[in-house]
Structure formats: structure tokens, C-alpha cells
């Protein structure tokens, strides 16, 4: 699987999906005009990656300072196949990173965490 690297813009996050290392990351802010267009290819790539059997643990690092509701849905769509893979035995960790004091992102992480039962969902507080 080719690594996906997309630079951050004002409205979209920096993407680095290093499939070979099993390390995926999203950083920045996410409120693209068309969230489906931005996240669609990422979701496809992730599904294709998970379809290939592998023992490599997956770490998905999310460090977003802001995301709109359609990005939230897109994140949910990315998390679902990961949770499914974890249910089938793959080691999956989602690192939800937020700045200390940023309760909006922290609460959003808590909401997402409730949907995971097989994958590890870690809330990582970062010092401001």
C-alpha cells in the first residue's frame, strides 16, 4: 500500500497514512467544504489496507483542533472499519490527542470512545 501524505490547508488536516508502518495520523483542523470528497479516498484506502491480512499493529493518531459535524461523521466512518478489524483480532489503537483545557475536543473524544469496544481508544492530554 502506498503511503498517503497530504499537506494541511486552512480547512483540511495534514494526512499521513503510513500503511507499511501501521501508523496513520490526522493533524490540524478539518472543515472542508465537501468532507465526503476529502475523506472518501482515505476511507477507501483504509478499507483496502485492512482487507490485506497482516499482524502489524495499527496506531491511528488524531490531533485535531477543530472539526465540523460532517468531518465528525467522516471520522466515525474511518473508526468503524478499525473497530471491525480489532474485533477480528487486529491490534488497533486510536490515540485521540487534545490540548489540556480543550474540553470541546476532549468531550468529542469521549463521545467517540463510547463507540469502541475492541480497539483501544486512548485520550491523550497534551500540555499546552
Amino acid at each position: 500500500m502506498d503511503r498517503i501524505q497530504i499537506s494541511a490547508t486552512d480547512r483540511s488536516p495534514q494526512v499521513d497514512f503510513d500503511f507499511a508502518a501501521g501508523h496513520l495520523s490526522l493533524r490540524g483542523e478539518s472543515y472542508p467544504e465537501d468532507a465526503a470528497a476529502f475523506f472518501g479516498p482515505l476511507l477507501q484506502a483504509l478499507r483496502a489496507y485492512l482487507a490485506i491480512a497482516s499482524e502489524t499493529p495499527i496506531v491511528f493518531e488524531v490531533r485535531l483542533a477543530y472539526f465540523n459535524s460532517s468531518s465528525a461523521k467522516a471520522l466515525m466512518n474511518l473508526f468503524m472499519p478499525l473497530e471491525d478489524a480489532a474485533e477480528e483480532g487486529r491490534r488497533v489503537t486510536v490515540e485521540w490527542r487534545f490540548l489540556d483545557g480543550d474540553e470541546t475536543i476532549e468531550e468529542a473524544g469521549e463521545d467517540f470512545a463510547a463507540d469502541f469496544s475492541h480497539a483501544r481508544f486512548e485520550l491523550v492530554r497534551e500540555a499546552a
Partner: protein
Amino acid sequence: MTDEAITEALPASGASASKRGGSLRGAGPRRSSDFMSAAEFLDVTSNDPGTMRPGALRGSAQGRDLDSLAHTLFLRIYPVIAVVVLVTQIGIAWVNYRDQLHLYTERADLMAAITASSIARPEWSASPQVYHRQMEALTLDPAFRSATLRDANGTVLMTLGETRRARSFELISAQADLVAAPGTAPLGRLTLSISAEDLRSNAEKQGILAVVTSLILMLAFVLTLHANVRRHVLAPLKRLLLAMREVEHKRWVAVELDGAFRASNEIDVISQAFNRMVDGLRSGDEAKQLLQQLEQAHRKLADANHLVMESIGYARRIQSSVLPDRKALDGTGLEVAVLWEPLHLVGGDYFWLEEIDGLGILLVADCTGHGVPGAFLTLIVATALDRLIHERGLRDPAAILVALDGMVRTQLRQDGRGSESDDGLDCGLCIWDPEAAEIRFAGAGTALTTIDGAAVTRIRGAKRGIGYPRRTGEHIAIEESRLRVTPGMTLYLMTDGITDQMGGAGPTRRLLGHRGVMDILASHQQAPLSEQVAILDTSLAAYRAGEGRRDDMTLVAFRPKAMPRAM
């Protein structure tokens, strides 16, 4: 460029020169008009030198037409060379002639003297026949014409050769006295004439040679000059002119520097300078054109933007007219203040205030998207809500949200009928019962926050929004919360556009968040609600500090009015 034209022109000009027998005027090329038409320069005024009018040459010398450059050079230089050659040749011939004449005269004198001295005997005149042999010896000279022997008295004793008088300039005459011994009287006289005809014909030949030489020189000069001027001056200049013509029409051609014949250094330098100038002009012109295109595109964009903004401005009027009167709940004993500010004039935020059956209904909804698409969804929500309250008579907040969930999903065909959309709304609904001083709240993605003194309480309701497509087996669970409203308590329904304010710089850059918003509101509890809302709006802008807003924002703040003392 027209290298063929040049090679064609060359024999033509050569032919014209030879045909015209090397006359000064005819020798020059006369067809500048051909070149001018070939170069599409017919609009350039040119004197046709084919019929040389007075002053035409001067015009050419001033460079009014190019072909006359060779012509001018020829006319200026050739006469000088021709005169010099002619004068030199004739001078040489003259000097030669004089030398030969001098030699001939000396020869005649010598021959006469030798013969005279051989004859000079006393009494020679008695038998002049004795000396006939000596006299005959003179005829051995091929130039000999005549010889006459006279005695002391001048009587002719013997004559040889033709004595008839020839023209004097063709003859060289010599005389010698017959002297027997030095100091004695002459005994007679010998007169000798030799012909100078050869000398004259030689001199004539040389003169003709001089003229012919200068004519040949002229021809060679004309041909060489024209060939060279054409190849190294006119042809490059022509290329330059054609290029200038192209440039005049904004076709950015450069002059070829390595044509069939190299241009003279000066023209080469000019051509290079011209090419650099063309480069400069081209880039300048391209920049200008790009700028024009850019300006045009900008105008179009501005027009399009104006049109869109006008259209959206109209849409805003419609959306605003769908929203309720802010004083709709005045009769229910509630003080209400609203902040409704879409991100793009219209938006997906919606609120509803209505008094019905003695109850107050307060609803805040945040539909997916903002701008026009969001506004479409608010109209669907508004219509559905109207039907639920007025046609179906629902007064239970959780029941209303569950019903709204179904209606929106159906309306958007997100109920498994093949729609690709994934839209819905976050919604918070309060039913205010003034009699019981009680609020019944149901929320889906939208919380109800209360401030009561120092206590800030958030009732979050259901986590997910409503109206979205549902996964099989998924059930919406919306629960109702009831709370007693006491005087001094203020309640807030807000969309996440209120709390999602990005501000701060560097490592502290983050969203203001719910707590930040409540801190602002809590610190202005004593102010009237409308003032509180205005302060919040200003504070949010201050927090953003130039950062753009991210979303539509709506806040509905309400609290029981202070009880009239009369009651």
C-alpha cells in the same frame, strides 16, 4: 526569410547592369519596389528609382530606400576611382610617348651625324654617287622615310625615300652638316626623316586600354559592390525590416542571426539588440495580456459573485421571514433573547419560538452544512415541526423529536430508498409550562445549559442528531428531562457554532468551548438577556481576534420574567 528573393535579385541586377552597358545610372539596381512589395512594405513611401527623377539620388543617399544604398555608394566612389585610373593610365601613356619620341629623335640625330661624317670629304659634291651606299644604309632603319643630301649651296644632290610631305607630327626630322674638319665651313647638309607612326599607334592603344580597363573595373566594381552590399547589408536589413513589420503586428519573431550570409558586424549587433528588444516587448506584452485576462476573469468573478450575493441576500430575506417573532413568548412570562447569525447570510441554523395552548415552545436546530444547503434543510425542519405541533398536536418534546427524526429522514429519502445524502440535524427542544414553572427538555446533539447563581448545569440529551440515515437495528433513544425553573435561573439552547470559536495563538490556539462561553454568560447574569447576548457576540469576536468563524451560530437565552409584585 527571403533568401530566394536575394539570389533571384542578384542575377537580375547583374543582367540589368550589363544590359545597360555600364552606364552610371543603369548600372545600379532599380527595383527597390520589388523588395518593398515582397516585404509588404507598400505603405512605406518609396521613390521608384527606375525612372530617376532629379533629387531621387539625394533621397536614396538619405536612406529613403534601401536598394539605393549600393547605388549611392557606386555613384559616390566610382567616379573617383574611374578618374584616377584614367588619369594614371593616360599619364603613363604620355610619359612613355614622350620618352619614345625623345629616343627616336636622338636616333635620327645620331644616324644623320654618322652618315654625314662618313660622307664629309672635300670635293664630295663633285661625285655624290660615290656616297650612295652610305645613304642607302639609312634605309635599313624600318622607320626610315626619306633622306636628302644637299651641297653647301643648298642644291639637292641626292634624295632617297618618299619626299612627299607627310604630316609633320608623324615625322621626326634630323639634320647634320657635312664638316670635313673641325672649324671648317660645312660642305653640305644631310636631312633625315623617320616615321613616328608606331609611337602614335602605341600611345593610342594605351589610351584605349586605359578606357577599357576603367570600364572593366567599373563593371567588376558594380557587380562586387552589389553582391556584397546585398548579401551582407541589404539582405540582413531586409530580414530586420520584415521582423520589425511582424513585431509591429505583435507577432514576436526574432531576426535570424545566422542567415545564408553573415551580416556585417554593425547589423549583427543591431539585430541582436533588436532580438533583445523583441524579447523584452514580448514578455511585457505577455504580462500585459495576462493582466488583461486576469482583470477580465476578475470582472467576471466579481459579476458572478455579485449575482450570487444578490441571490443569497434574497434567500436571507426568505429564511428570516420563516423565523419567528422574537417576542412570540412575551405572553408566557419568559424573557427571551436570540443570537442568530449564519456564516454565509443564510445557514443551517434554525430556531422556533411559539406560544400554543398556554405553553411556550423553544427549539434550536443545527442542520448539516451551512449556507444555502443548510438553509434548505431548515425549511424542511420548519415544515415538519409545524405539522407535528399543529396537525398532530404533539406537546411532548421527546415525542416531537422522534417524530421529527422520522419526517426529516423520509423527506430526504434517507430511509433506505436509495438516497446518497447523509444529512440531519442536531436539535434541542424546550416546552415551557408557565403554570408549573417547569421546562420539559429533549435534546439530540444539542444540550440545554442552565445558570442558576454560580451553578452551571448542562443537560446533554441524546448524543446523536436526528434525521440521518440509520443503520439497521439502530434505535433512537431520546429522553425527556424536566426541571423546575426558579427565578434567577437562566437557560440557554445553543448550536456548536457558538462554542466552536477558534482563537489564541501558537500552542494555546484552541476552541473557546462550552466552558468558555458559559464563563462569559455567567459573568453577566445581572444584565438583561438582550444585553447578555450582545456582550457574548462581542466577546466571541474578541476571542477569534481576526480568525474566521467556522459555523453558523444560534443562541436562544430565556428566563422567567421577574414576577410582577401585583401577583
